[in-house]
């Protein structure tokens, strides 16, 4: 067991997966000698060779498509897109091929690939380096979309993603890469996909969130504790397919729900969670379902980005409003 940052945990999971399965390969821009711009793949090329840790040309559509071809003939490719803002040219491959190969061939071919990408704002980066458009991906049938919120989750979920027999997009909250540490046991144990985690039990309001917002929601919850509001925080972790039961059970208990995400509000994945509750949990609701999210604007350049992302204060004030609704 060792204290790790999220980036170290990801690195450990990749190394573990490559060590235990020779069919795992890593590919992307700068993943080789440089170890990735965030060092997620640090040391992998030295250890596993440049044939298994491939510096691709600057071609995102290619990265997506190479993964499909590799996966279909028996490799387990883990592609890296340097920032989510550069992932869009891959969407074609995800929608039109990766997620369909199994259905199209009725199981004759399949596509066990992982596409990793850092995402989210909060690191004062240039334009396009602060995207969080996970909702676009979580709408794609046949895909899994996984988002860790801590180093240990990153480790366990990434291993699960790599071992999964179907395509997975794995989105890593950039602002968590180095800003929190946690004990992680590098024992090759995966965490379940398709499962949400109740990371804080509470009685009055359920907050459903994921990625970097889990920490913010927990902070808001702690503050509200002092005001006598008991907040349950659910880390969704896997957005697609997501764990309806954990959400519904929590809301059945609290009767109040707030969904928090960093992405723009309209059509964000928070809408899906709210829609689920409004369909299957409506009768237990004591208050409207609130969404605290990024705005429906372009993510501003660093000067204003902190005003874009949901802050602990905004989250807390929404929870308070919902808690006191009657």
């Amino acid at each position, binding site marked *: 067991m060792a204290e790790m940052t999220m980036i170290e945990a990801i690195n450990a999971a990749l190394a573990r997966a490559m060590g235990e399965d020779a069919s795992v390969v890593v590919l992307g821009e700068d993943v080789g000698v440089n170890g990735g711009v965030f060092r997620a793949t640090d040391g992998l090329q030295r250890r596993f060779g440049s044939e298994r840790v491939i510096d691709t040309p600057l071609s995102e559509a290619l990265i997506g498509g190479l993964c499909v*071809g590799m996966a279909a003939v028996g490799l387990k490719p883990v592609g890296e897109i340097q920032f989510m803002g550069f992932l869009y040219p891959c969407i074609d491959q995800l929608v*039109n091929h990766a997620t369909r*190969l199994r*259905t*199209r061939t009725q199981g004759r071919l399949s596509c066990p690939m992982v596409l990793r990408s850092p995402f989210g704002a909060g690191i004062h980066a240039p334009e396009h380096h602060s995207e969080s458009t996970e909702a676009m991906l979580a709408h794609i049938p046949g895909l899994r979309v996984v988002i860790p919120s801590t180093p240990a989750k990153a480790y366990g979920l990434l291993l699960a993603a790599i071992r999964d027999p179907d395509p997975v997009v794995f989105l890593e909250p950039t602002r968590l890469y180095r800003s929190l540490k946690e004990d992680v046991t590098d024992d090759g144990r995966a965490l379940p996909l398709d499962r949400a985690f109740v990371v804080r039990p509470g009685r009055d309001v359920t907050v459903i969130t994921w990625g970097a917002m889990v920490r913010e929601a927990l902070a808001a919850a702690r503050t509200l504790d002092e005001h006598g509001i008991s907040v349950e925080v659910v880390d969704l972790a896997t957005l697609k397919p997501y764990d309806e039961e954990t959400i519904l059970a929590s809301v059945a208990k609290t009767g109040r729900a707030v969904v928090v995400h960093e992405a723009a509000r309209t059509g964000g994945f928070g809408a899906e969670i709210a829609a689920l509750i409004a369909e299957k949990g409506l009768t237990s609701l004591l208050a409207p379902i609130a969404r605290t999210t990024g705005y429906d604007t372009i993510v501003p350049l660093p000067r204003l980005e902190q005003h874009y992302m949901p802050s602990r204060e905004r989250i807390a004030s929404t929870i308070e409003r919902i808690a006191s609704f009657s």
Partner: protein
Amino acid sequence: MASGDQPAITDWPIVVRLAIERRAYLSPQGDVLAPLPSSASDPKLLIELYRGMVTIRALDVKAVALQRTGRLGTYAVALGQEAVLVGLASAMRGDDVLFPTYRENGALMWRGVTPEELLTYWGGDERGSDFKASRGDFPISIPVGSHAPHAAGAAYAFKLRGEDRVAVCVLGDGAMSKGDVHEAINFTAIHRLPLVFVVSNNRWAISVPERLQSATPTLAQKALAMGVRAWQVDGNDVIAVRASMIEAVARARAGEGASCIEALTYRLGDHTTADDARRYRSDEEVQAAWKNEPIARLRRYLVDTGVWTKLQEEQLLAEVQARMDLAAEHYLALAPRAPASMFGHLYKTLPAAYQAQRRELEEAGGG
């Protein structure tokens, strides 16, 4: 224009020179233009190639007949391009992998995919792509060019694992305008992958003629400029296509890298059964192109060299006709599937989240 569109000044040192050559063995009249390659020396084999082309044409005729009578979906014939399909498929090994488009039904068929399967696919049923033979081949890819990176990925895997398998990726002239195709060719060149790109240049991408697709006299030059060996071949000369393919496949298998063969041919039919080519091209153009078509050409050569008779021809036509009739019969007799089968291969194991949806569908009468 364009290719000659180089700087006029030539005092500067030249750092790269590139050239594209064009290969052909049989003239449109079936006359020998160049000494035939050894791969064409066995008349039995030539007859096999001929039979392959005739079979493809028969499949197309049957498919269109079914479509016209409402019993098949949109279908793309390969009329006039049969030599490309047979030429490329006949040079591949069973465990090589083909990456076909909607126009390569015939190449798949050569590799063992049955006409039944092909009709099932075009009849709108996924089971048609669960090929019972040639199980490693990719299914037909509809989004133009998007399968080129797949071929590169597969070829990379072959190389990584030290397998001597070759990926063969077929592209149209239109596909050569797609960015993902260029990205794939570039990667292929960098890693000298065991891959053969076959550009089936049939001069049209639906209604868009070559001159609006590219400013250049060849498409092969684009691959060449990426660092991939490339040349043109008369795509209506099955001997030439096959010889080029044999060379390219051998090279790939030997670890010497990729090739790109631009096969010059012509789409004699409509783009698909949903298209009406008379809207955008002249009858004269099509009539002229018929003079170059590959089947008559090889037949003339076979007849001229005395290895093919009228009787054999009649037998062959009857035989392939019967085969296609039978295929259609099997296809039409195929039992429908339960609608809920749409969930059957969504994931390896259907996640709990979607089991309820499957039940919903079953209850909606889709059991």
